[in-house]
Structures are given as C-alpha cells and as structure tokens.
C-alpha cells in the first residue's frame, strides 16, 4: 500500500517526460547533427554547430540587444505596474473599473496588438505621428534604428505592465496591516511608509514578478516579427527571432538547435545570478 503511492505519480511523470524531457533531449541530439534543408535526419557532426555559434557575431549581438530590451522593459513595467497597483490598492473612485481596464492589454493577443501598434506607428498614416505633428514632430518610428527599438520597447511595456500590476496588486492586498499601524503611530509620512514598510514587505513578490517577466521578456518574438522583422538592419533583432530565422526560415535545424541550447544555458545562468543579486539587494538587506 505504501509503495503503491508511487504508482499514482506515474501518469504525471510520464507527462513530464513527454512534454519536457523528451523535447529537451531531442533538441540536444539534433544540435549535434547537420540536419538542414539538404541533409535530413540525425547524423553526428560533433560540436561543429557549437563552434559555429561561438563565432556567430549576429547571434551574440542579438543576445546583447535582447538583454538591453528585456531589462529595460521589465524595469519600466515594474515601475509602472507598482505605481498603478498602489493607485488602486487604496480606496478610490472607479477602482474596479480601472482594475479591469489596466488588465486589457495583457488579455489581447500579442500578434494582433503588434499589428495594431505597427499601424499606430505607421509613419505617414499612423496616429502617433499625427499627434506628434501637432507640435511639429515626426518620428521615423520603424525606419530609424533607435526609434524602432523604442517602438518595440513601448509595445512590450504597454502589453505586459498589467501583468506586473496584477501580481503586485495581489501582493499589496495580502500585506499585513500591523506594520502600517505602527508606522502611522510613529508619524511616518506616505513616502517614508512606502520605502520603509511597503517596499521591503513587497520584496519577495517583487523578485518573483521581476524574474517571471524577465523570463517572458527574453522570449520576445511576435512583436519583433510583426513590427520590424528585426530591422532596420538588425536594430531590433532579438535572439529568439534570430533563432527563428535560422531554424524555420533557413531550415538549419541542427544549427538552430545548438543556438537554442546555448541560449537556454545562458538564460538559466544569467537569470539565476539576477535572482541571487535581487534577493541579496532586496531581501537579505532587510533581513
């Protein structure tokens, strides 16, 4: 009877094996093959693909670009999300309506919203330049290297700030009341209360939210695909988009598997370090 409990774990383990372990092992195997448009199947070419990854400047540039994009967008999402959560945390008019409205961007399909944003940023027909034109400005949103990067950043922040908002609001709602009472008795103002009470208490959930969003942001693909195709030049080409090009457009299956695994390892290592640093900065200090 005691041992039979393991039997009940079997379906879950099988599913886990099928949907996580097998694809991962298969990808590892493929990465050591030359599978491409002309050479189907799993031959063995040793570490050639990984050697090629090491010298692929475009991949490393896309990774650097991705780092800047994901870190800056997540910081902006966190800041805005926290501000919005604080705004509707306390009693205020239309709080429920605002909560729902804030969540709308997150509930829309990224591809659809990217198409809409591409239209908004259309340089001769889009409303963004129409509005800016009132003050004599016209931004080459999608045809200038920096502007295109900012355009992608704006869409990312717009789409995913609600996610931060949701998590942080849930955290705020669950905070204990006693520290606030103590702070009020001690005469702390709202700013001091935020920095001395709210922010430290929110640290664990903030770290969780930041890491989750960093993981998601580092996979950005659809927005880039629809809005810029990685251009102008390679100004908005991210790692995932580059891997997509190599894998599904160029059909270099073996090489794109090597790129994917390299990317996976880098992300695991860097996100682990970031999490440790955040814990040390936000939690350990407080402890």
């Amino acid at each position, binding site marked *: 009877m005691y041992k039979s409990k393991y039997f009940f774990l079997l379906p879950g383990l099988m599913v886990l094996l099928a949907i996580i372990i097998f694809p991962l092992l298969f990808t590892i195997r493929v990465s050591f093959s030359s599978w491409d448009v002309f050479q189907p199947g799993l031959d063995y070419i040793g570490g050639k693909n990984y050697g090629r990854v090491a010298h692929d400047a475009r991949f490393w540039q896309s990774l650097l670009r991705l780092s800047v994009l994901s870190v800056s967008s997540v910081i902006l999402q966190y800041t805005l999300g926290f501000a919005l959560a604080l705004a509707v945390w306390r009693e205020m008019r239309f709080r429920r309506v605002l909560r729902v409205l804030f969540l709308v961007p997150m509930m829309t399909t990224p591809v659809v919203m990217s198409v809409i944003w591409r239209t908004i940023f259309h340089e*001769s027909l889009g409303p963004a330049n129409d509005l800016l034109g009132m003050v004599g400005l*016209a931004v080459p949103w999608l045809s200038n290297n920096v502007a295109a990067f900012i355009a992608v950043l704006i869409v990312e922040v717009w789409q995913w700030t609600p996610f931060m908002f949701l998590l942080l609001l849930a955290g705020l709602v669950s905070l204990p009341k006693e520290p606030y009472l103590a702070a009020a008795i001690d005469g702390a103002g709202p700013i001091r209360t935020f920095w001395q009470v709210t922010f430290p208490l929110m640290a664990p959930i903030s770290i969780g939210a930041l890491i989750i969003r960093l993981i998601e942001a580092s996979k950005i693909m659809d927005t880039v695909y629809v809005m810029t195709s990685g251009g102008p030049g390679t100004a908005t080409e991210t790692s995932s988009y580059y891997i997509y090009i190599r894998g*599904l457009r160029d059909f270099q299956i073996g090489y794109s598997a090597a790129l994917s695994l390299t990317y996976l390892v880098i992300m695991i290592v860097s996100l682990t370090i970031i999490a440790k640093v955040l814990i040390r900065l936000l939690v350990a200090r407080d402890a």
Partner: protein
Amino acid sequence: MMKRFQLLSVSALALGMVGGAVAAQDYTSFGIDRDLPGTCNYAAIDAKDYSGRTLNIITHAIPVIGEPTALHAQQFGALTGATVNVVHVPFGDLFQRILIPLQSGKNAYDVMFYGSLWIGDLNRFLAPVPAAYQSSTGMMDVTKNYLDVARWGDTMIQYPIDGDRNYLKYRTDIFDNPEMQAKYKADTGNDLRVPETWEEYNAIATYFSGFDWDGDGNPNFGSAEVTKRDDLMFSAFIARVAPYAKHPEVGGGFFFDLATMEPLVNTPGWVRGLELFIAAQKAFPPGGTSFGLGDEIFSFGGGQTLMSYTWDDAFIQAMQSDSPIRNKVAAAPLPGANEVWNRATGQWDHFDVPNRAPYITWGWTSAVSTLSENQDMAFDYLCFFSNEANTLHDLQIGRFGVNPYRTGHFDAAFWESQLGWEPRTAETYVATLSGMDDSRNRVFDLRVPGVSQFMSSMAAGVAAAMAGQKDPQTALDDVAAEWRDIVDRIGKDQLREAYAQVVALEDNQQ
C-alpha cells in the same frame, strides 16, 4: 452534387478522351461565366468519379493562392465526389510544413502550393507531370518562362498555376501631365519620361518626393519599394541589381560563377545596385525603409507614390474599381543600366541602349508529391484548378494572387472588356508582361538547395547597408563570406549541379 459518370478512372486516358470536349451542362452555379473548352474543363472533371478517395492539399493562407485553392478544391469535390482537405499555412511556416513530412517520408499532402524558387530544395520529392497533362490545352498555352520555371532539367515537376515577375508601375497622370513635364524640365534640364535606367528612376523619384503633386492635400513621394528585411526585400534588391550585374554576353552565372561556385554577390555590379537602392531612400514615403509588400501595394495602389515595382499586386490594387488612381497607371519594363559589369574582363561595359535584365522572380506554383498514392487525382485537381474558365475567373480577382502566365492572358481586350481597363493601361500591362517573356537576358531565382539561407543572408546584408550599419561593399563582402560558408555546408558539387539548371535558363540553353 453533379451527376456522376462511372466510366473513367485512369486520368491520362480520361484526358485523351475528353480533351476539347465542350460541355452542354450549365456550370455557372460554380461561379464561372461559362464552362470553356479544354482538357480539364468542368464537363471533363464532372465525368470523373473519385468517390471514397481523399485528396490532401497544403497551400498558403487565404486569400493569396489559399482562397482559389479552397474554392477549386470545393468545386473539385463536388464534381468528382472526392473528399478534399485543404490546409492553409502562413507563408513563414509554409516551407517547413511542406519539407518536414517529405524529409521524413510521410505522405502528408498529395498536392502542394508553394513558391517556385523552392524547386531546388523540393525537386527530390516532386512527381513528374505526366505527358498527358503536359499536352493539355492549358499547359500548351503556358508561356516559355513559366514552362522553364516548372522544369528541373528536362523534367517538368511543377504545375504552372501563376506567372510572376517584377515590373515597373507608374502614374500616367503625372508623366503625361504637360505642367509636370515642363516643371521637371525647367528644374532638372531633363525630359520627364518613363525611366530607362535605375539612375533615372532615382532622379525622377527623388524630384517628385515631398510635395503634393496630385492635389489631394497630402504630400506625395517618388517610390514605394519592398524594403522590410524578411518580407521579400531580396526580390526588390535583385530587380535593381540585375541590369548592372547580368551582362548579356557573359554567361556562366549571375549569383555564382558556375565554374568555381565563388559568390558574385559582392562584385561591382551588385554593389552598384545596392548603392542605388540606398540612394533611393530619399524618395521613399515616411516609413518607406521598412515597407513590407503590403505597404508597397497600398502606397502605390493608394496613390501616395509616383512609381513602384515588384509583382502585379500594386498594379491590380491601383486598378480596383474604387481606386482613386484607376486607369491613371501604366506598366513598363524594369529600368536598365548603361554601365554593366563584365566579370569576364573585370571592367564596366557601356551600353548606349540600357541593358535590361528582367527578373522572373518567384511566383506561386504547385506540385504533386512522389509519396502521394493519389497522383492521378492530384494532377486532375491541378489541371482543373488551372482550366480555362477557372484561370480567367481567378485572374480577375486581385487578392487571389493569380497573374498572367499563358499566351491567352496577354490579350489587352480581355482586361479591357472584363475589368474595364482603359486601352493604354491594358496595352502597357500586356506588352510589358509578354515582353519579359521574350527577353534573352533573364534573371531567375537562385533555385538551389538552401535558397532560403542564401536569400536570408543577402537580405540581412542589404538591410544592414540600408540602415547605415555597414557600407555597401562591406555588407556584400560579408554576404559573400556567408554564402561561401553555406556552399561549404551544403556541398559545392550538389550546389553546382543545381545551379547549372538556373544558369542553363539564364543563358538560354534550354
């Protein structure tokens, strides 16, 4: 459901027997004006019985090619009793969705619709078109260009259903306007005429940029081009490069030197084409440096720009019944070049009459899988898809993406009577398209294994130069280096063998 005839089951035999038959039956319920005589007309297909059999088709997303695929599949099923399944796939996924089952030996699709430039990758998996279909009335009328596109060596393995090429479109209301002609002459000292060279194209386009020359209250611009990196920009670039790099007297390769398989993409003719592409940015509308095909279509078709080139779509858009520029457009051959790089002598050769090199850029095609167990039905479907009545019907619907590819389509009267085009528009359209078919200096796609790798690499290099990240020579040197790596990976001999097929077409050896 139409009446079934349980007589014929072997397609080739059926083709021979019913070829040329004229139907007495009324098929207008299928959306055509009337059934037309032909090997695979409605009556002939109606005589077949494929009850209990299933045909699986993979095609592009609706509407381009996907919509006529589905329409004719539904009609084919109704006529023959077959079950026809159509899978629609976005363009970005189409190649891998076709190739993976073929590589793994799975009989996933009987019929495949795809870009004809993939023949270098897919030829191993495509069933030869049977002789009976090659001698069908429809096929006999296909122009040489598209028969060439359909062949791999001496074997026809693609079934022509579309004809695509890049050509110039321009606004006749501006080019023919005496005020504009006088203004242009006064300001530049040159006559305003349809550009003969890409330098002239750039000059005219730049001049007509940034002011409201059509009086609609909005600024207009000179040129709309496909510049978005992974959105068929490679075709626009090749169209611009071709007259500088395709010397009519130097054979042996446009993309590579066939003898050595050394890339030619960074030779002076190519670099000149890129320099002019970059210079043309001054004439683009706002955002024009990131225009995809859709943007180009609507920029020219919507009246924003003076000129454009690429496929038929922008022209058809401009000629829609509700278009503000309907019958104010005309077609012309792509501009040429007075100076052409001669790689045999390593010098520029001067041409008093500009060198033209029509780019027979990829179009939609179709094929039957060698793995298919329903090849008879599959070829019947394709023959029906492209029968006389269906083709004339599809040509009239711009969103279908079916463009002229038969001699019979090059009749100006058809476009005038069926679509209400004015004679000049129809005549320039027909003359331009048919003229490209007659050229002896054509450029074809790089129809070799890994074509997507080569084109994607080239597009990235061109985009980097367009964005100012690299100078033109460096950008194309980098592309050439990447092409050498691709050649090494895929194998020089395999690539040479495939590329020889392209060179044979370009050098008129077939």
